[in-house]
């Protein structure tokens, strides 16, 4: 594996020395994607593309804190700590792909990443090189949501794009934020297998005639699929995001219940192993990497968990020991920026070896696939002028990803306060949302990239200081509970007009202190404040969609310069390897 990575770097070095980097021409620099093809089966893995059909910029986090068992280990490494851990040369294109270091400069040098027409070219090449009949393309979900066109077509533009891309098996999370009937329509239109062992029809709903894949087991969807790859057979079990009805509105999918359900997973793995006798058992997971690491230590008989949700671009798998062997755990980043390549070799006892790469999809290094490019342009046409409307200019780098407020979050929070004349604003800690470079025009499409959900309505309401503290503590515990099974995989709620101190090592109720307004005034538990926000999970809010609020604000200010980033003073985090 180390040799492969060195080889990768060496080839990148050649490309650089030959003057091929930075590239404006899409010259034949496919060498960096030239991998050994010695394994028996190849599993390609994309995840969390969030409907980004066109190439984008995506800044990896500078703050991705880990504590307790996760301290100093992947995925809780950022910047140089990540490069050191994975032996990646600083300043290289890989360093740019995996970290936020010198982001603007490096992004200008290496160009945009992802985009389905480039992804298609790369996926086809990785299939052709290895053998089409021995290769699978797996999609970890969060694919049918995240752009204006995905919302307006209720995910259907992405179903079609995935069919063109040739996705064989997928699972989901944001896919379940359309109405349940739409989810089932989309799954029916999808050419691959949509699998999820942990989505069940509630017993009373089943009784009332709600459709199920298997009425006896209660599975709402197919739990797994066996794929034949040459002479080998591989079981792919789906693990959807376990907390979908908690983190997202349950009102769209009232009949379905989720959960980690690792006991069920163990039973299913054992059953598949004994009844189907596959050569390998793979879990395609949307748990998030910390949950996957714990699950891998508890559930036996799984060769690899290919994971997503937490958007961690992790260059090499973590080998997790459990009672009966080792399970590989990977996480393949987000926004179409990476393709994971897991080549498995088989011996007498099943999987005997592997090679893994997480390949960055540099649009400048690849040719666009004409059929996919044509599809995307045609599909976007009716909305093109709306998407491309320039709203303002980025006076600095705008991004979201990180445990606390990113600059684009601050724009959203500032917009909420300004448009609604509120003292404080709240915005969800989603991990998706693309980055905008300084000097770039901020288009409506960029705003939609950050906000496009099926429950975008805004609200303005009075909240007490006590309520605000309770919200911060609740979300803080979802992020920093020492037990990964109690984490939901989002980042901290974003704030406008409110500062605080935050100690991730404390217990629930004790992490947040010294809450103050921007003017330094202390927040009082019993006093009411005017708060604006969006994305309410419990019930629909009455206000306009958030993207209209942000667009109004951006048109008004014309150039974005963040005056104040409402990010907390961190306690017990100074030397954390998850902090740049």
């Amino acid at each position, binding site marked *: 594996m180390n040799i492969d990575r060195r080889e990768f770097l060496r080839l990148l070095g050649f490309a650089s020395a030959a003057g091929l980097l930075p590239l404006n021409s899409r010259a034949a620099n496919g060498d960096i994607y030239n991998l050994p093809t010695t394994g028996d089966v190849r599993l390609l893995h994309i995840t969390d593309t969030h409907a980004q059909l066109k190439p984008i910029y995506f800044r990896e986090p500078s703050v991705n804190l880990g504590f307790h068992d996760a301290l100093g280990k992947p995925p809780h490494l950022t910047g140089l700590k990540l490069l050191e851990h994975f032996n990646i040369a600083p300043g290289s294109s890989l360093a740019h792909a995996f970290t936020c270091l010198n982001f603007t400069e490096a992004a200008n040098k290496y160009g945009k990443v992802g985009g389905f027409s480039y992804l298609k070219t790369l996926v086809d090449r990785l299939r052709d090189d290895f053998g089409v009949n021995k290769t699978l393309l797996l999609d970890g979900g969060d694919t049918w949501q995240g752009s204006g066109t995905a919302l307006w077509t209720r995910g259907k533009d992405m179903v079609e794009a995935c069919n063109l891309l040739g996705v064989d098996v997928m699972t989901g999370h944001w896919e379940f934020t359309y109405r349940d009937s739409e989810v089932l329509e989309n799954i029916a239109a999808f050419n691959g297998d949509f699998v999820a062992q942990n989505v069940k029809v509630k017993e009373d709903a089943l009784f009332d005639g709600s459709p199920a894949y298997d009425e006896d087991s209660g599975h709402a969807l197919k739990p797994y699929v066996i794929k034949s790859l040459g002479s080998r057979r591989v079981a792919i079990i789906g693990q959807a995001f376990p907390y979908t009805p908690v*983190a997202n509105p349950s009102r769209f999918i009232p009949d379905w219940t989720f959960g980690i359900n690792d006991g069920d997973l163990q039973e299913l793995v054992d059953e598949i192993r004994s009844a189907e006798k596959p050569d390998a058992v793979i879990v395609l997971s949307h748990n998030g990497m910390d949950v996957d690491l714990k699950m891998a230590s508890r559930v036996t008989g799984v060769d690899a968990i290919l994971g997503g949700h937490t*958007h961690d671009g992790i260059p090499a798998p973590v080998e997790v020991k459990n009672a009966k062997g080792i399970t590989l755990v990977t996480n393949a980043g987000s926004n179409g920026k990476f393709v994971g390549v897991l080549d498995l070799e088989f011996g007498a006892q099943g999987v005997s070896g592997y090679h893994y790469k997480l390949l960055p999809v540099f649009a400048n290094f690849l040719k666009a696939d004409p059929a996919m490019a044509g599809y995307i342009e045609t599909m976007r046409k009716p909305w093109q002028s709306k998407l491309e409307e320039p709203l303002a200019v980025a006076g600095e780098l705008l991004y979201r990803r990180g445990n606390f407020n990113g600059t684009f979050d601050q724009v959203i929070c500032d917009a909420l306060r300004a448009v609604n004349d509120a003292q404080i604003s709240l915005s969800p800690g*989603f991990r998706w949302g693309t980055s905008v470079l300084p000097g770039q025009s901020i288009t409506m499409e960029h705003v939609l990239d950050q906000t496009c959900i099926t429950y975008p309505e805004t609200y303005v309401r009075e909240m007490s200081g006590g309520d605000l503290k309770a919200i911060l503590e609740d979300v803080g515990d979802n992020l920093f509970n020492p037990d990964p099974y109690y984490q*939901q995989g989002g980042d901290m709620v974003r704030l406008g007009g409110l500062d605080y101190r935050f100690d991730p090592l404390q217990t629930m109720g004790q992490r947040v202190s010294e809450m103050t307004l921007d003017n330094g005034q202390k927040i009082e538990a019993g006093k009411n404040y005017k708060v604006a926000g969006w994305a309410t999970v419990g019930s629909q809010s009455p206000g306009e969609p958030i993207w209209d609020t942000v667009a109004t604000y951006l048109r008004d200010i014309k150039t974005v310069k963040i005056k104040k980033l409402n990010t907390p003073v961190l306690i017990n985090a100074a030397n954390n390897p998850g902090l740049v």
Partner: protein
Amino acid sequence: MTVDGQSMKMNRRRFLGALLKGSACIAVATSLPRLAFAAWNEKAFKAETLEGALSNKYPGLEIVDSTALKLKAPAIAENGAVVPVSVKTDLPDVKSISLFVEKNPSPLAATFHLTPVNVADVSIRLRMGETSNLIAVVESGGKLHRAQQEVKVTIGGCGG
């Protein structure tokens, strides 16, 4: 076995429907006496602390933590008003299974009384006002066997 190419296997919904319509009387007739005669332990159900509920429910019995019972409950509740919980065990001679929600105003949430012919596998939905430990206790062999798990009741939102 097939009839006109159709599987004779009754699906779950039809089975449950048929059970309700056809067998309801029998089911009620056999289970009613136990419900009627099981003593309502008012002191235990009205106790406001976990210790009070436990000692009133099972006075004088030794409690041991056990892996011989499987408590199944969500780590994070989808809806605190109806948290699905199940308990099963292979322990012999199970007399009763009780569930306690530590932070509920009255922690003893339910007791199932079992006879020797019952399979010790019960499920129920509990109401939980806030994040709390959930404790399952199985009475078997003159001892109490305990398993517990935290169930988080969260405001929700802000996911990935």
